[in-house]
């Protein structure tokens, strides 16, 4: 096969397989945009966060922590632990991109989100290591990226039109409830969830949102401990 058309074909396969996921991603991006602006971020900062951080739930959390005047350490540490799962994705796709030049590794790392990973690893698991597989990854990743940037922009625009009296900040808690409930699949996860929630209320007196990190640590330890 001509490698030029082969690349395009792989890229388009990635776009095609990622597309159905956008139905769930687009509203989420809009909600992020609305929330970030109603939390007090400038429209430029809200949109830039989608561009340079590019990480769904971590962006919701960081927007809220900025509004709550959390310390820099708490903000960075919280985003870091929330995104630690990406290290697992990185380990899992590593064998398939091991032979690529560094610029490709940089680009694909930037695009390695939950949704791009889910689609790409399914394909890699079936096809194995192929010479043009990274074009599939790029197609899936860029499709998600474009959708996230566009839906954030719509949300940022809407958010700047909606008055604070609507109480839209509460959508943060509801969004996180919708994300976290399906993750609680066994008893250890439930223990982790309950302990983290109670500890967060208990540690709420700590300054600069330090209680958040303490509560998360308590939940992780409790879940891990009850697992054995």
């Amino acid at each position: 096969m001509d490698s030029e058309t082969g690349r395009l074909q792989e890229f388009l396969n990635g776009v095609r397989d990622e597309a159905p996921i956008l139905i769930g991603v687009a509203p989420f991006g809009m909600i992020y945009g609305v929330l970030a602006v109603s939390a007090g971020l400038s429209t430029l900062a809200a949109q830039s966060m989608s561009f340079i951080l590019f990480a769904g739930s971590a962006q919701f959390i960081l927007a809220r922590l900025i509004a709550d005047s959390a310390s820099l350490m708490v903000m960075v540490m919280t985003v870091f632990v929330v995104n630690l799962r990406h290290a697992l994705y990185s380990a899992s796709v590593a064998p398939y991109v091991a032979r690529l030049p560094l610029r490709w590794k940089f680009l694909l790392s930037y695009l390695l989100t939950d949704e791009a990973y889910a689609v790409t690893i399914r394909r890699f698991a079936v096809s194995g290591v192929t010479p043009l597989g990274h074009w599939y990854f790029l197609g899936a990743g860029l499709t998600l990226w474009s959708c996230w940037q566009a839906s954030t922009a719509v949300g940022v625009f809407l958010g700047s039109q909606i008055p604070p009296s609507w109480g839209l900040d509460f959508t943060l808690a509801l969004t996180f409830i919708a994300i976290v409930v399906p993750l609680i699949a066994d008893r250890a996860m439930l223990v982790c969830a309950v302990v983290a929630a109670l500890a967060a209320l208990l540690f709420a007196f700590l300054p600069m949102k330090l209680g958040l990190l303490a509560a998360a640590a308590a939940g992780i330890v409790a879940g891990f401990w009850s697992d054995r």
Partner: protein
Amino acid sequence: MSREWIAITVAALFTFLTRFSFIALSGRWTPSKRLCRALQFVPVAVLCAIIAPEVLSPTGSILPLFSNPRIPAAIVAILIAWKWRSTLGAIAAGMALFWLFKL
């Protein structure tokens, strides 16, 4: 540079390095099963630690249980997310109930 920009930039750098980590190592080291399991608890713990105060003490102290509209809204959202796994359904129903109780 203001606080929000420093936070966004540093957090983005950490996130990129996390994603790049094993790709950079090209599969020369893989995480253990125990570490993978521990990492699965992280999003659940962090999200629950954010949700609880947002629902029960949005103003800093725990609101009276029976006049806090966030509690029934959160319960309905939990039930919908659990029963139907619908993200948008949970958010929409929760907000609808929240507004209804605030009226």
